[in-house]
């Protein structure tokens, strides 16, 4: 596993990096947000502290799912119409992936290339598109993050999202930001199969 350290440009605390391609790191000591640009680190303001909620997945606590081991190193929380959901950036044997958790609904997803010309308005609940069914659509706002992340997220950033599902527990998510569309593909997971290690 990759291991490196940086010093927080705000408070000087040593911060561990678990992922070679991390783009963002939150300082758990002073709450600063740090951009990681090649060899340099840059301060990017303060983070609000995320409230502690009951969760099977926790930062730096490895877990196993279907014989594969994962280590959560980053955590983002999004608010939406019904409440909130958590996205955990976890390191696996490959390039890492996102685990989405919303009150017992778990999904493992990897970022993929977004379809060209995808527009939020074109996805209506129940629509069938190339074998995928639109099962959820809504608006979300980033509440904050902790740990380290492979991409930039901004507290307070708003976006629209759609979830598409198909047989075999497959999931395809699209997130529509002002300047880009992010796409993720993965599978729903059974929380009863997740074993927290240690």
């Amino acid at each position, binding site marked *: 596993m990759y291991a490196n350290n940086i010093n927080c440009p705000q408070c000087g605390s040593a911060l561990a990096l678990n992922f070679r391609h991390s783009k963002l790191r939150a300082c758990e000591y002073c709450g600063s947000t740090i951009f990681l640009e090649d060899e340099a680190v840059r301060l990017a303001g303060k983070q609000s502290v995320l409230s502690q*909620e*009951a*969760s*099977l997945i*926790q930062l730096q606590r490895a877990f196993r799912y279907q014989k594969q081991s994962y280590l959560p190193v980053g955590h983002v929380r999004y608010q939406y119409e*019904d*409440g*909130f959901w958590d996205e955990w950036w976890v390191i696996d044997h490959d390039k890492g992936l996102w685990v989405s958790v*919303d*009150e*017992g*609904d778990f999904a493992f997803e990897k970022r993929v290339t977004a379809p060209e010309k995808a527009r939020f308005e074109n996805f209506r609940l129940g629509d069938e598109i190339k074998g995928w069914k639109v099962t959820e659509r809504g608006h979300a706002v980033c509440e904050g993050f902790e740990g380290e992340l492979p991409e930039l997220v901004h507290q307070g950033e708003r976006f629209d999202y759609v979830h598409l*599902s198909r*047989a*075999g*527990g497959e*999931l395809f998510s699209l997130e529509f930001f002002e300047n880009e569309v992010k796409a993720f593909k993965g599978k*729903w997971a*059974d*929380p*009863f199969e997740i074993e*927290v290690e240690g």
Partner: protein
Amino acid sequence: MSESTSKLRSIKCSSCGAPLSLHAGHKIKSLTCDYCGAVMNPKDEYKVLTKFSEQQLLSNSPLKTGAQGKLKGVLFTVIGIIEWCGDGECWIDYQVFSPTHGYAWLSYESGHWVFLRRTRYLPNKSLWRLLPLQSIKVNQQSFRFYEKFDAKINYVAGELTWVARVGDTTTLAEAIDPPYSFSEERNERETEYYLGEYIDAEEIQQQFALPDLYKPKNVHRLTPYKSKFLQPLAKAAKPFAILSFIISLIIWLFMQGSPVTIKPVVMKNLGNGQVESRYEFTINKPKHLIFLTMDTHKANALLNTTIKQKATGKSIVNLGKKNAKTGTYRIDKRITHVESSFIVPKAGVYSLSFIANTQLPVKKVAVTIKENRVGSRYFFWLLLLSLAVMIFSFVSRSSFESKRWKLAGD
């Protein structure tokens, strides 16, 4: 954190003012007052959506909202209750919630409990098109069609992940692989799939600290077949049956022994109508089983059959005496067929003689002797015993399964 309990909050019923406890998370779509039957919308300041004042209190419910217990090792809280009636039966579904594992259902019917969780895995073919005995596959698990039926809501209380109203109907189809089930539920809004697992009543009683619980006597469609004695015995008997069958077959095919040449020596008239016939044969492999068969058409002709060591005159087999010391023998009632297994102490020449009451031509008696034979009798009995246990277990299981499938619909 897996032990986390739900956060307890409370509000007053928007209709009657009764205190109501809230245990669930943000996915709740309705809250129904236990006292006045008002259905409220948690997403809109608990505004009353509808009211069912005619709703009768549920008297036969073993659990109440707020009850907590572990299901599959995870602590769940009962947040809502629905009583369904359909297909001549009524049952209670408890909506349960865990902050770490989300929402699930605990279904109670005539003392039986089933834990149901929503699954995103879809069946390989529609449950609705299945005929009796047909199967579906879900995530590599095979389920056999059990029944489909309509059900109507009789009673609602507490928090639910959908807006349930008394009188609402739904259509259910279920396939089973005891103790598991796969069900499809359709209503006017959506189709949902659930995986169920039978939970022992005693486990529920223990986990939810229930003082008394009705112990089911009938067989539920998901009750796993359990026999404390027969099931493990049949399981243990299976390898024995296979092994003893293979060994018996090998012995029967390849270890029947080598034929020994028999030479008629003398036929002697003893007077009083009795004739002694004598044969000689050579045994090369002592201390190995020797097998003798004698057949004739004349009744009592093989009486007083003896085998002696020629050199010493020592008797090895004496079929005329009940207390024959060496080997085993079998004689039919008419004494026309003799089978004997025995061992001789040394290699050498042995004589076989029998005394017939009437003069009997030698050609009318068929004698065969085989040496170096392996006995299969004990393996054969072991095979029979193992098969008997397995058959008994199979019959017991079949009887249980017929009770399970008796109520299956189409």
